């Protein structure tokens, strides 16, 4: 696509119009957008085409359309977090990642779980997004709309956010590539926070190669984000095309045994392929996954309760007519059941003197130490993203069971590690994915192994039948 644009074989306007047509057509089935921003997209495309005609030097993604999860601030475009609480809120500025991708026409704002709380996209106040492989099934969450759009061919790439697995799990359910960078690698300035010590912007693309291009554009230090790492960004494209020979890859047999038969078999097969490629599979133990999930519940809910305390209807967002100030505050905080549950849990977690929150952080420290020690023995960890393929939207499990969707993804958020979800098979017509996790700031290792995997398999080329017809 980028080569076609650079060679003048296709214009950004033609490309954008094509993706907008597909988006409009699929919106009725997928509900993957909260808003389609066709006019803004075409204005950007026109500007880029004009610059290209004048021979201006443009970035590698200039003119390629994108979709953004609707918790990423966009100047002049409503940013709802899929919540009634933010009805009518139009940010006066672009998030840092939107600034960096300013030459990419914005197709629209993608659906998500309300305030990114959920693993199914069914907590959105705008109705659930659906999975393009089977619209009766969940696209995953919370970045479900972002993943569904890439899987359905409605957007060449999208951005999501990942607090406990919210980029990787939807990527797995929809059969696309999903990348969560290290904490600090990508600026979160302009992201509406869920849990600031865990949140990270992530990338959803059809392939690892595309992922490297997008990551290259959005990575880097930003003084407006106090947690942004002051480190140089390597050339991620240089990692593509390298081999896995000599890499030590940790695999936990107990984890495989806990997966559905389809996921377990696909991961075992992936491990065999990696060995054939010269990788060394090393058996490891991960006896802290349950504790990681417990720590996540405490930390994420307490931080969410703090993050969402700012929404009171005074300055912006939904504001009902109320006879008293107290009723106006309460009336403006019209959260759905999932957010309400997490806020209450968060307040319970903060408790007297923040006791439970501190407990969560102590456990987190212990898990970070164990992961650091593990990465002294291996270069990468091979894990499932989730233990099963996409579930039906009408058979959503209870709240605790829903959190188990993130069991294998949460450790990366607790420890700030980069992680990559890669399509690795199908079960009953639904995509399956593996997950690779690396030490902090070793995105290059993940991209190298991921691109190697996608040179040897064609799972990432498969698209839902309806879209291909």
């Amino acid at each position, binding site marked *: 696509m980028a080569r076609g644009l650079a060679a003048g074989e296709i214009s950004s306007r033609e490309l954008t119009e094509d993706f907008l047509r597909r988006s409009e057509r699929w919106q009725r089935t997928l509900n993957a957008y909260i808003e389609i921003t066709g006019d803004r997209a075409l204005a950007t495309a026109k500007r880029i085409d004009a610059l290209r005609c004048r021979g201006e030097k443009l970035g590698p993604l200039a003119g390629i359309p994108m979709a953004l999860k609707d918790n990423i601030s966009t100047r002049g475009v409503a940013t709802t977090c899929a919540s009634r609480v933010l009805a009518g809120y139009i940010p006066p500025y672009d998030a840092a990642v939107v600034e960096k991708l300013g030459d990419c026409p914005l197709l629209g704002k993608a659906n998500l779980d309300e305030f990114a709380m959920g693993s199914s996209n069914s907590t959105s106040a705008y109705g659930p997004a659906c999975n393009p492989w089977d619209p009766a099934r969940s696209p995953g969450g919370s970045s479900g709309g972002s993943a569904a759009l890439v899987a359905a061919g409605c957007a060449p790439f999208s951005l999501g956010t990942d607090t406990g697995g919210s980029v990787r799990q939807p990527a797995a359910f929809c059969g696309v590539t999903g990348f969560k960078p290290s904490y600090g690698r990508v600026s979160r300035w302009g992201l509406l926070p869920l849990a600031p010590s865990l949140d990270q912007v992530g990338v959803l693309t059809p392939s690892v190669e595309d992922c490297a291009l997008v990551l290259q554009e959005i990575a880097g230090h*930003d*003084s407006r984000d106090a947690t942004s790492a002051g480190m140089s960004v390597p050339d991620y494209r240089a990692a593509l095309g390298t081999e896995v020979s000599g890499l030590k890859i940790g695999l936990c047999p107990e984890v495989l045994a806990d997966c559905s038969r389809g996921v377990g078999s696909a991961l075992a097969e992936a491990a065999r392929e990696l060995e054939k490629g010269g990788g060394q599979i090393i058996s490891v133990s991960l006896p802290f996954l349950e504790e990681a999930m417990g720590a996540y519940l405490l930390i994420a809910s307490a931080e969410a309760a703090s993050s969402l305390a700012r929404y009171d209807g005074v300055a912006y967002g939904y504001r009902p007519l109320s006879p*008293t100030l107290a009723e106006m505050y309460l009336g403006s905080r019209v959260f759905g059941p999932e957010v*309400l*549950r997490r806020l209450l849990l968060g307040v319970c977690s903060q408790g007297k003197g923040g006791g*439970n929150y501190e407990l969560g952080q102590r456990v987190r*420290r212990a898990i970070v130490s164990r992961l650091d020690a593990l990465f002294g023995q291996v270069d990468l960890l091979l894990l499932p993203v989730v233990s099963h393929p996409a579930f039906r939207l009408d058979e959503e499990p209870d*709240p605790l069971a829903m959190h188990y969707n993130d069991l294998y993804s949460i450790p990366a958020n607790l420890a*700030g590690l980069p992680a990559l979800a890669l399509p690795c098979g199908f079960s009953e017509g639904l995509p399956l994915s593996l997950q690779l996790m690396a030490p902090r700031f070793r995105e290059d290792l993940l991209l190298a192994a991921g691109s190697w995997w996608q040179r040897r398999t064609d799972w990432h080329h498969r698209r839902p039948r309806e879209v291909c017809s």
Partner: protein
Amino acid sequence: MKVSLTAEQLKRTAVLAKVSLPEGGLEGLIGQLEQLLDYVEKLKAFPPGGEEPVGPTSIPVGGGKTRPLSQEEVLALAPDSYRGQVRVPRVLPDE
């Protein structure tokens, strides 16, 4: 020990969280919260002790300056404005 939450405790928590509880049917919500609190209760046995909690993760950053929003930009975000200041809708009724 199983965590137990009463309706009164839930109502008090809702006041602290500044949220309204659904009318009726609190038993379901109490049950869900008890299940989650039970789950995290297990953490008290892990780790054995001595671990310091994770502190703020701030990394020293460069001295880059952010352009502040102009008055016009701020006012454009406000529900209404008057003589260069944000004017919010009346909250309290007339006396």
